[in-house]
């Protein structure tokens, strides 16, 4: 339905195309992907072919030059698919990893990589987190030593989405090991197969099962000096800037997940009978679902409004942090109740709510944990 305050006819048409893609190209296959632990590249290429990987990028590279609102439509609809492992595979590529290349990359780097990124021939990952440094980005320990026109990387990266199957990795490392702080983090663009770079293991996860997540190791990994993304020492600021987009995306995705769960549960309680009538006849149930619907509507409106302000160039760090904290927690609250109202069935693997509940858990941790987000909000209120 056109929501004239935030969206145009083009956004609605985009929504329609994504829904159709999910019905035809995702839902019939995604259970198998959950078992395989990955989304097939052929599916990602199909998404590229209909323009879903170039939403924000210029036409010259094959993109559509749209703004944050279109990104929100993409993230929300992928979240609605009920397979968030699939959604995150695409969204890390479009909105968390490749944006490092687009925002900071040189003309040469962009020309070389952006067309493949947009078509889905090149899949990207972003590697910031380490075994000993997650929320505290400044404390990463991976180093990059400058040696004869090359950088030599040493260290390990943890929980990297698309880590097993990506082609291009945007990797954070410290360039000046003697000095602690934020201005010695640098982003590097590293291709799969660079000498000394290995995917040490694929990780076995609680949810997001069809998203591949890896630990990466850099052991005297030598990359040419022009692998730097942006300027040496500016990586921390690039990460913080790109986090803003990532967090709106995760918020939109979470609200898509929550709405899908509510829709499934509304269907279920309207047909499931107990004590002589559908569960829907119990006020205890329908009032809880009514309140959750109101909260999800509020979360969604916060995401939409923040995306409009972000698109207009406003500084919305406080609101983006609110989005991440609020939506990341809310989706878990919704899943808990939706599983509850499915009764014993909700606990069964064959029931989508069971998977969706596992998938939702990470929304309160990844891309800025709730506690860390609330600190960002607290600084600004």
């Amino acid at each position: 339905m056109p929501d004239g305050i935030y969206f145009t006819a083009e956004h609605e048409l985009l929504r329609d195309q994504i829904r159709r893609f999910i019905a035809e190209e995702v839902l019939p296959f995604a259970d198998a992907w959950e078992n395989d632990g990955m989304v097939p590249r052929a599916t990602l290429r199909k998404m590229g072919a209909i323009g879903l990987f170039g939403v924000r990028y210029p036409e010259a590279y094959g993109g559509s030059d749209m703004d944050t609102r279109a990104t929100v439509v993409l993230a929300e609809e992928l979240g609605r698919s009920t397979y968030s492992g699939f959604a995150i595979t695409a969204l890390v590529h479009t909105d968390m990893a490749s944006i490092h290349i687009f925002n900071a990359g040189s003309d040469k780097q962009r020309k070389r990589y952006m067309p493949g990124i947009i078509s889905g021939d090149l899949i990207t990952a972003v590697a910031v987190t380490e075994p000993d440094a997650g929320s505290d980005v400044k404390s990463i320990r991976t180093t990059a030593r400058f040696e004869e026109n090359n950088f030599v990387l040493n260290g390990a990266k943890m929980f990297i989405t698309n880590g097993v199957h990506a082609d291009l990795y945007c990797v954070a490392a410290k360039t000046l090991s003697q000095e602690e702080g934020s201005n010695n983090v640098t982003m590097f663009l590293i291709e799969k197969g660079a000498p000394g770079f290995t995917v040490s293991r694929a990780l076995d996860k609680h949810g997001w099962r069809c998203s591949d997540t890896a630990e990466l190791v850099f052991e005297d990994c030598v990359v040419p000096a022009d692998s730097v993304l942006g300027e040496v020492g500016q990586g921390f600021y690039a990460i913080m800037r790109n986090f803003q987009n990532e967090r709106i995306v995760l918020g939109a995705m979470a609200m898509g997940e929550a709405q899908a769960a509510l829709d499934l549960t509304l269907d279920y309680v309207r047909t499931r009978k107990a004590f002589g009538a559908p569960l829907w006849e119990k006020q205890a149930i329908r009032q809880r679902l009514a309140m959750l619907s109101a909260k999800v509507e509020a979360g969604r409106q916060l995401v939409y409004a923040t995306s409009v302000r972000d698109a207009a160039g406003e500084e919305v760090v406080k609101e983006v942090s609110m989005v991440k904290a609020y939506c990341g927690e809310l989706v878990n609250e919704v899943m808990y109740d939706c599983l509850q109202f499915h009764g014993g069935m909700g606990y069964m693997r064959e029931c989508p709510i069971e998977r969706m509940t596992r998938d939702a858990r990470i929304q309160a941790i990844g891309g800025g944990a709730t506690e860390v987000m609330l600190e960002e909000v607290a600084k600004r209120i």
Partner: protein
Amino acid sequence: MKVLVPIKRVIDANVKVRVKADESGVELTNVKMAMNPFCEIAVEEAVRLKEAGTASEVIVVSAGIAQSQETLRTGLAMGADRAILIQTDVPLEPLAVAKLLKAVADKEEPGLLLLGKQAIDGDNNQTAQMISALLGWSQATFASKVAIDGDKLNVTREVDGGLENINLNMPAVVSVDLRLNEPRYASLPNIMKAKKKPLESLTPEDLGVDVTPRVETVKVCEPPARKAGVKVASVAELVDKLKNEAKVI
């Protein structure tokens, strides 16, 4: 050769249609609308003819309320070159639509009119046949295959007994069936490009067509709910029930 593709805005096929409380029609407020699925097939076929070099231009045309523009934009995003909106708030009957489309065809002089065999709202299945009569052009309905050979058209039709192959002279009117093709996605770059394609707006008066309805709708109501079936033990019992209970044989 120009191809003219009439398309209609209908309730989205995935929506559960509900009757309005006052029984004056079906509920349209806050209901998701979309291009009629058979029209999508017609647009796809026309765009393929253009891609194959057989058609020079694909024009989508829709008659209806202002929001039909959205449906035309979808057609443009699928690859049509330009669009014509015949804007009116009057509910349109098939004959009125056929007259409007005849007027557009007289103006545009297409070699082929490709349209859906029916719209999933009224399921009338009349417009194509009526335009063909009004224009005096040959027609092929329910096409599952369309091939152009010079100024001849070879069409495979889906008929009750199977498939029928017919040859027509052009210009012609072809109504398309479900199995003709699978419509493409409107890619995001094409959705954005569609914004810049021309969309001409006309009224029935501009075309000199009187669209006043000839049929009055007295009441719209839900079909009676289907009752549970019964199992019969033998053919004899079935025949007996059909004869004596249902009284149909």
